[in-house]
């Protein structure tokens, strides 16, 4: 018998409503609502995006050369990813094939971003749930608790993140608002002094990254039943791969597979992504729902990000990460690689790949090259796609003859994962919450499922006092029956 989808309740007006708003350790303005009947059975579960971010309007009308800096302000979490996707798109507008030095500088910057973002997510945001348990004491289930119980892990998390930030600083020119990458190339190379400074810590970074993979593996071994099944579901997937099938987080062709693992398309050029992907809208969310055209809106949704990339590539082109990928794919007869909590394992494998890639690039003399910019024949349109820390990121621009951006379309990683995250919370609601007295620990299961995707629901706005977590239990008539806040 098919289970109800839990997307739309038949009679929502008769149901109790629980709101988790905003999600803790998830950026910004999202909330989860659960509708329960009188027996506490879950009738509807939705992840909503409650704020509309007019990315495209922000960019349209600007001269194209401002765009790589402006788009960094879309997201305080991964500004480098937006910067690089924009530059890749605008390279095409300039008709430029970037020089080896420019491409390698950008790659180095990108791997720095991947490393620091993944370190933050695992050590700071997810490790408290994973190390202490999803429904352990909430007062301890945080980074301070981790620092008390596992001080070395907490310290390594901070230092890994700092190393990634230093890679970004040396390649982008600044900590934030970097101008290192520009349309047509880069405006700086890596000096020998900068290279040597990064080389001091790179081997330690690789060693810690490798240890981090083992931490997640041990967590799987110790909690196999839970990790195998938690919020797990079959899904189509999308990501970039290199021409030889290798993982490539910076460039490549689009590979998509259906929920059974069969190719839908492979090495498809991303410059015409709209022939493969389109977006649905739903009245209850500001965030769109992308899907594969050939499967339709109902069946064509998919998942992006570390778990997809690690499982979808044919191999990882750095030796330690490839070794770990093989272990991951084989673990528990392949179940870990299909589980939602496998995101954490995959993320750490990618962090290791990023660390190895940084080391390899630092030994590449092209980074000291002086041929930084390229030119070509001007084109009216450019599409840039990279694999950002959270998944596939698409930037698409049309630029007129006066150098003004007249159309912009962005599909960010979290948007690709919109339906997948909704399915994940419905799986959790069905399995852990249905018919039970709801506690903070049980509600945290919902957040654990969402956090596995590491969504970035809003961006960059964070002012003091703006980010409490409120959990409200409302009666069917909207009155608040109970509430809790944590900040």
């Amino acid at each position: 018998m098919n289970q109800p989808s839990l997307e739309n309740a038949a009679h929502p007006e008769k149901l109790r409503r629980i709101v988790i708003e905003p999600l803790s350790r998830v950026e910004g303005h999202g909330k989860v609502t659960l509708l329960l009947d009188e027996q506490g059975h879950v009738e509807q579960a939705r992840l909503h995006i409650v704020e509309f971010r007019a990315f495209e309007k922000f960019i349209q009308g600007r001269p194209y050369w401002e765009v790589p800096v402006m788009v960094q302000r879309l997201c305080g979490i991964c500004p480098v990813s937006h910067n690089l996707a924009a530059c890749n798109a605008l390279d095409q507008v300039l008709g430029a094939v970037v020089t080896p030095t420019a491409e390698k500088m950008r790659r180095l910057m990108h791997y720095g971003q991947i490393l620091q973002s993944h370190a933050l997510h695992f050590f700071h945001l997810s490790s408290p749930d994973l190390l202490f348990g999803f429904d352990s004491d909430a007062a301890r289930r945080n980074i301070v608790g981790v620092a008390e119980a596992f001080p070395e892990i907490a310290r390594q998390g901070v230092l890994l993140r700092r190393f990634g930030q230093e890679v970004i600083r040396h390649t982008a020119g600044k900590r934030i608002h970097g101008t290192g990458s520009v349309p047509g190339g880069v405006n700086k190379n890596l000096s020998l002094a900068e290279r040597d400074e990064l080389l001091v810590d790179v081997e330690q970074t690789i060693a810690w990254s490798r240890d981090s993979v083992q931490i997640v593996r041990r967590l799987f071994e110790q909690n196999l039943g839970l990790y195998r099944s938690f919020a797990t579901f079959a899904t189509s997937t999308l990501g970039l791969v290199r021409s030889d099938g290798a993982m490539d987080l910076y460039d490549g062709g689009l590979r998509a597979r259906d929920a059974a693992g069969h190719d839908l398309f492979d090495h498809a050029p991303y410059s015409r992504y709209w022939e493969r992907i389109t977006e649905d809208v739903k009245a209850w969310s500001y965030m769109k729902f992308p899907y594969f055209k050939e499967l339709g809106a109902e069946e064509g949704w998919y998942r992006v990000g570390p778990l997809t990339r690690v499982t979808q590539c044919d191999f990882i082109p750095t030796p330690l990460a490839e070794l770990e990928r093989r272990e991951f794919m084989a673990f528990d007869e392949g179940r870990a690689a299909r589980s939602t909590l496998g995101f954490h394992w995959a993320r750490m494998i990618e962090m290791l790949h990023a660390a190895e890639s940084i080391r390899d690039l630092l030994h590449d003399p092209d980074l000291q090259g002086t041929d930084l910019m390229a030119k070509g024949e001007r084109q009216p349109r450019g599409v840039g796609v990279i694999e950002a820390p959270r998944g596939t990121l698409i930037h698409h621009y049309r630029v007129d003859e006066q150098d003004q951006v007249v159309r912009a379309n962005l599909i960010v990683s979290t948007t690709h994962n919109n339906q997948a995250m909704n399915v994940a919370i419905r799986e959790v609601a069905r399995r852990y919450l249905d018919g039970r007295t709801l506690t903070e620990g049980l509600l945290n299961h919902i957040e654990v499922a969402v956090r596995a995707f590491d969504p970035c629901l809003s961006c960059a706005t964070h002012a003091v006092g703006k980010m409490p977590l409120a959990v409200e239990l409302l009666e069917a008539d909207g009155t608040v029956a109970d509430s809790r806040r944590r900040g």
Partner: protein
Amino acid sequence: MTVAPTLVLAVGNPSCGDDAVGPLLADRLLAANLPGVEVLVEFQLQVEHALDLQARERVIFVDACVDAEAPYVERTVVADAGFAHTSHSLLPAQVLETYRRITGSEPPQALLFGVRAHSFELGAGLSPDTESATKAAWPRLLELCGG
């Protein structure tokens, strides 16, 4: 390498309405080139900023603040050992606590200099009220930094 005894950590997104207050005041401090003061600008506070506090005597967090009395507030910040949940960004007290945890020593004296903020729309400039608050706040921030 010696570091400036006072660190100003200004936080905010210049393209998100009143969130620009931190970077805007940081620009003015950088232009003032005050001795003994280092100014860093960030989109948001993160764990690694704890490392920027090392060997400092004092840190001033400059930020937009939605729960401040207009035009600005000065709040002493102490490490918060009890913070339970966070997002991708940290609060100043959490940065101090992270410092304690990773260094095993007490963080420098810390102050939050918060300017009253109202709106945070992408692409918007400062709201009129926050623009006024920023004007009022600047002389005091300069004074705090020894200018």
